[in-house]
Each structure stands twice: as C-alpha cells, then as structure tokens.
C-alpha cells in the first residue's frame, strides 16, 4: 500500500471519527491541534478505528508518541507490512 493510499484511508477514518466535513484537508503535517475534538482521550478511539480500517494492531508504546498524521501513516505502513509478512 502506497503512502498516499494509507493517508487517504486515514483521512477517511478521521472524517468519521471526528465528524469532519467530507472535503476536509488532512495532510501528513496535520496535528491534533488542527482538529477540534482530537485530544488525548479521543486519540484512543482514532487508533482503534484505524486499526479496524487497516486490519492490524499498532504497537501500544508508540501510539502516544505520534507528532502528526504523517507519523501515524508511517506507523501504519510498518504495521501493515508486518501483518502481510505473517
């Protein structure tokens, strides 16, 4: 899965999770400060929703160190690649 494909799917999950407009602009540089409702509490639900969307589990210790959407995309790509190998 390409980086662009992962980002597009993360964007779709964010639209659902945070009830964003359908034309919401989400880039690698988007952070929690850019999105109303994305706080440390709702972050867990975002992680659960992306895990469901990608059919994978993310490493717990890294899910709370993500600085922006780009780092989430990278983490997902790693996790999906590991899942595919198995």
């Amino acid at each position, binding site marked *: 899965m390409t980086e662009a494909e992962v980002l597009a799917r993360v964007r779709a999950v964010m639209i659902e999770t945070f009830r964003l*407009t359908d034309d*919401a602009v989400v880039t690698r540089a988007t952070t929690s400060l850019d999105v109303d409702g994305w706080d440390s509490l709702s972050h867990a639900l975002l992680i659960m929703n992306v*895990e469901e969307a990608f059919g994978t589990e993310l490493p717990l210790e890294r899910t709370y160190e993500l600085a922006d959407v780009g780092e989430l995309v990278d983490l997902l790509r790693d996790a999906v690649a590991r899942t595919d190998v198995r």
Partner: protein
Amino acid sequence: MSAAKRAASALVVYGNCQAEAIVTSLGADAFFTAMLTPVYLRSFEHPVDGRATIEGRTLERTALLWEQHDPIRFPYLDRLRSDVPVVTFASADLQLLFPFNCVNPYNAPEPPIFPFGRFAYGDRVILRAIDRGMTRDDVLEYYLTSWDDYAIDLDRLEQLENARLRARDAKCAVAIGDFVLATFRKQRLFWTANHPTSFLLAELIERLLCASERLNPALADTDIERTLQVCFRPEGPLGVVSVPVHPRVAEILGLEWYDPRERYRNWDGTTYSYEEYVAAMIDHAFAMRELGAGRPIAPR
C-alpha cells in the same frame, strides 16, 4: 477563612478544571491557607471568558507552581523567581468508562447556568444515528437496545488507555494514571471522562502535597480528604455534572460500584435516570439541529 488571614505566599495551580478544583479544595482548608494562598490559572480557552491571565503581583509572591501536563505550558515560567519549585502533574481522566464520549456538535454555551452548554459531553453512537437520518424515537430505541450493533472492543480500549496513562505519567513528577488503573473497578473515580470524584481528587492533591515537601514539609500534613468531606457536598467540587456509564460497559468492565438506579446531574440541578439522560440528550440534539447546529467541522 477570611482573606486577611491567608498566607502572603502563593501556590499557583495551572491546568484544566481539575486544577480549579484543586484550588477550590485547598482554599477551603485553613491549615493549608495559613501556609500558602492557592491561585488558579486555567490552561484552556473558556467558552465565555476566553483566555485567563495572572497578575504580576501574584507571580512575585508565587512560592510554588503545580503545572498540569498540557500541550501549552504555563505561560509565565520565565517570570517566576528561579528558586520556585515547579511540580508537574498528570490530569486524571479515563475514556474507558465513557467509550462513546466525544465533542457534542449540538452543544453551545448558554451562560450563566450552562457556561459549557447543556450537554458538553457528546455521544458518538447518538451522533452517528442522527447523521444516518433516524427519528428521535428510533435513536433512543437504538441506543437503549442495540449494544451488539454499536459495541466497542473494551479490551483493546483498556490496553490503549493503559498506554496513554502510563505514557503521560512518565512525563510528570506526580503521576495519577497508576492509581486510576488500579482502582477504577473497585471505586467510583469519575463523574465524567475528565471530572474526578472527591475520592480521586483527594488522592491527586495528597500526591501533590507530598511532592512539594521540599518547599515546606508541613504541606504533607494537610488533611485534604477531611476538608473535602466537611466543606463540600458528597459529589465534591467537580460533581455538579455527571454522565451515565453505559450499563453494558459497567457489566463488561465489572464495575463494583455501579448502581443502575443512580441519577445523573446537570448544571441546573436537574437529575436524570440513565434512560432519561439519554432521551434528554437526544431531544436537545434534535432541537439544536432544527436551529442549524451540528454540522460537520473543517480542520483548521
């Protein structure tokens, strides 16, 4: 205690509504206020009052800062005396008890009774059902009877909450996540996802006082548990609003303190059963929707 008898030196507590509750609690404790005068500085933008500031005179007499871990640090750090101890502490919160908690797009401030709105804590199951075009009655029926359709993986959420609280604790001098995780099944700790009960608030304050012994060893002798019992209603300074725990969440998590007959409170003193609360929140959402509220939002 009268203002004249208060100590000249100040303790500044910076953070969310929990920081305010800490100041309110300590301000009612005569033993504590003879040593320090507690002052609150909120870290967030109040929906009615906006950002808060602090006077230069208060900064000059600040002897101790308790700084809640927050993306925005205490904005006056460079104006404190260099010898002022700074004790960082973790916010006490838990999404696990309220797994559908979210921003409520149908909520709006209605001061003075509802400064944070009538239903500041939204519910994503209800929002999704409304978005799907369900009628008011169907949303209520769906919420009360269709858990299997909208259930969430609470085991995974608990793992994520563990990771979140431990990661934050590791960044703070005073941790509270360890206590929350060890206790939440046995004891009621929260009225909402981020409003602790007096039981948890007392634990947090006691930990902060112990961590501040370097300034004055007597601080740790403050009996905040007794002050909270004597000077406040049983629900404590943050219990004016309470949000129901979903009965199936209580069952699956094995919450020993859960009482299905409990009544839940709102700012205006109204109390609701679980079913009444859900119905009132749905009614409010539909009423606000007719006024044009609740549209999806665009990121900044």
